[in-house]
């Protein structure tokens, strides 16, 4: 969809096919593959019929749990996402052609990313894990219980977010509209039974060499004696169900949850095998946080959210706590920063304060989706995202913060953490 909404002033305005080349030239320390991946996340993809003819549900991962929507607003079986030659993933969704996405096509016997009519990089569909063919004893297809990236298992046990109850969902988020679609179209329950999760994870781990980590995330649940106690209770149940499959008390895992109080974090650490913790601030500016994340702002608040992240480092350790941002929303109209230059500076300043206290910041590229309050807007320039990736990576290098738990294997959705592959420990 073309949009008449004004945008923040870009760092270096360049358009078209030359954009990739000029951004690569401006950032010689960022590999072309990472720049390309970032641009594909930014612009989305369109699969040609020839490319879709190569999709084999017996061999490839086809879209599964749909916790968040696609940019074209459809729920349909399509490739889950793409693998690059360097083993990293591009997590992206089908995007209407009029928004100028990259095209995925079948070229000379291979699957390729095509831009401006020219093939520019070979890609592969994600391989399907063995367990996708199975069902739990309760009859649920396992692919709807736990979804798989090339090297990680994703558990989305609770598909509702209570911030939406009061109309305070994050402005870029479509979890609740997706929940309705998922329930109607796919029969996925809003809340998973821990036993289904236990069975599915046990089955997934039977596949040799496939997975290196498990990520658990869900919508926020404000209920409980203390706010979010109900969310913690449920995570404890789910994590214990997952932990039943491991012979070690701890297992490589990441919980992306609300910013919990220290006692809640201690409990997660004490009662489960969880090894890392993420609480997403989404945007690193107090004023914009209040606008973009009204539920988080009212129930926790920006400053308290940051403090809880810092206190989480005491519980999980340095290099095991981070916060995610949806990069580009800080430039959204009408209240976002007026220029990309300001957005970058302010974001990196805040990220540095967090890094100095042991908390990493990682970003995903904002993809404005229909069904969100910011639908119809555009995300930032490629140059902005690449500069942000370099900046966040540089902070981790400067403050000696490892990011193994959220790297290209354990997530794959953060261009900034891809760069850590070259860091000496």
């Amino acid at each position: 969809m073309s949009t008449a909404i004004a945008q923040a002033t870009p760092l270096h305005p360049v358009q078209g096919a030359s954009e990739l080349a000029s951004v690569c030239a401006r950032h010689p320390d960022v590999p072309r593959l990472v720049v390309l991946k970032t641009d594909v996340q930014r612009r989305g993809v369109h699969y040609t019929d020839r490319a879709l003819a190569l999709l084999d549900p017996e061999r490839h991962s086809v879209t599964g749990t749909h916790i968040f929507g696609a940019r074209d607003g459809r729920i349909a079986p399509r490739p889950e996402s793409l693998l690059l030659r360097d083993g990293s993933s591009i997590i992206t969704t089908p995007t209407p052609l009029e928004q100028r996405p990259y095209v995925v096509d079948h070229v000379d016997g291979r699957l390729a990313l095509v831009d401006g009519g020219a093939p520019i990089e070979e890609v592969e569909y994600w391989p399907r894990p063995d367990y996708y063919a199975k069902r739990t004893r309760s009859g649920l297809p396992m692919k709807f219980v736990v979804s798989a990236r090339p090297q990680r298992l994703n558990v989305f046990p609770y598909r509702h977010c209570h911030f939406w109850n009061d109309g305070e969902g994050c402005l870029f988020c479509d979890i609740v509209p997706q929940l309705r679609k998922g329930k109607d179209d796919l029969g996925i329950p809003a809340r998973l039974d821990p036993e289904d999760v236990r069975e599915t994870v046990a089955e997934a781990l039977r596949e040799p060499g496939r997975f290196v980590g498990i990520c658990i995330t869900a919508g926020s649940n404000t209920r409980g004696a203390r706010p979010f106690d109900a969310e913690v209770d449920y995570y404890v149940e789910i994590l214990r169900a997952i932990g039943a499959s491991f012979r070690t008390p701890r297992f490589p895992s990441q919980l992306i949850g609300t910013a919990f109080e220290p006692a809640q974090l201690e409990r997660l650490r004490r009662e489960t095998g969880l090894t890392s913790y993420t609480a997403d601030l989404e945007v690193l500016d107090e004023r914009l946080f209040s606008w973009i994340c009204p539920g988080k702002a009212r129930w926790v608040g920006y400053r308290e959210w940051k403090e809880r992240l810092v206190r989480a480092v005491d519980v999980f350790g340095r290099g095991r706590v981070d916060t995610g941002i949806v990069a580009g929303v800080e430039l959204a109209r009408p209240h976002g920063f007026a220029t990309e230059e300001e957005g970058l500076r302010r974001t990196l300043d805040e990220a540095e304060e967090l890094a100095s206290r042991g908390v990493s910041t990682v970003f995903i590229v904002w993809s404005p989706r229909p069904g969100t309050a910011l639908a119809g807007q555009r995300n930032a320039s490629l140059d902005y995202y690449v500069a942000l990736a370099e900046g966040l990576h540089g902070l981790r290098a400067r403050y000696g913060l490892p990011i193994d738990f959220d790297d290209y294997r354990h997530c794959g959705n953060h261009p900034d953490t891809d760069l850590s592959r070259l860091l000496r420990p």
Partner: protein
Amino acid sequence: MTATSLDPRIPALLADAATVKILATSDRSGRPHATVAPSIHLDDDGRLVHLERLESSGTQRNLVASLWFDRPVAVTVQRGAEAFEIVGVPVKALVAGPEFRRQYEALRARAPEDDLAAVWLIEPREVTELTHDVRRARQEAERPFLTHLDRLAR
């Protein structure tokens, strides 16, 4: 140089367990790193295959840097006096999928404690024979000024 133009002795050398294989890489700043890499072999497309067992190793880091910034690596293979250097470029890291799984299972069958970070595919670009007798004969024939005179004296 494409794989089909590899010296015909190389596939046999790579297939022989008695052959010593050294993989030399460098980081972005040029810091060199060499490691004995017994897993190196040829695939059906004539690419060198290296099994990197540690995600945190210097070799893994340097192979990523090579793939990202199109920098060559060198593989030296030697059995007895016979030796070659193959200069190539890492073109792909397999981390999941049927071939990765096949290699992972085979590796774990040989070494149950081991892990596999990536299966690296390295495209050969240039091959040089390093067999010492061959190189000495070539030097003596082509560059006569490089020889000590006493070796030529009556």
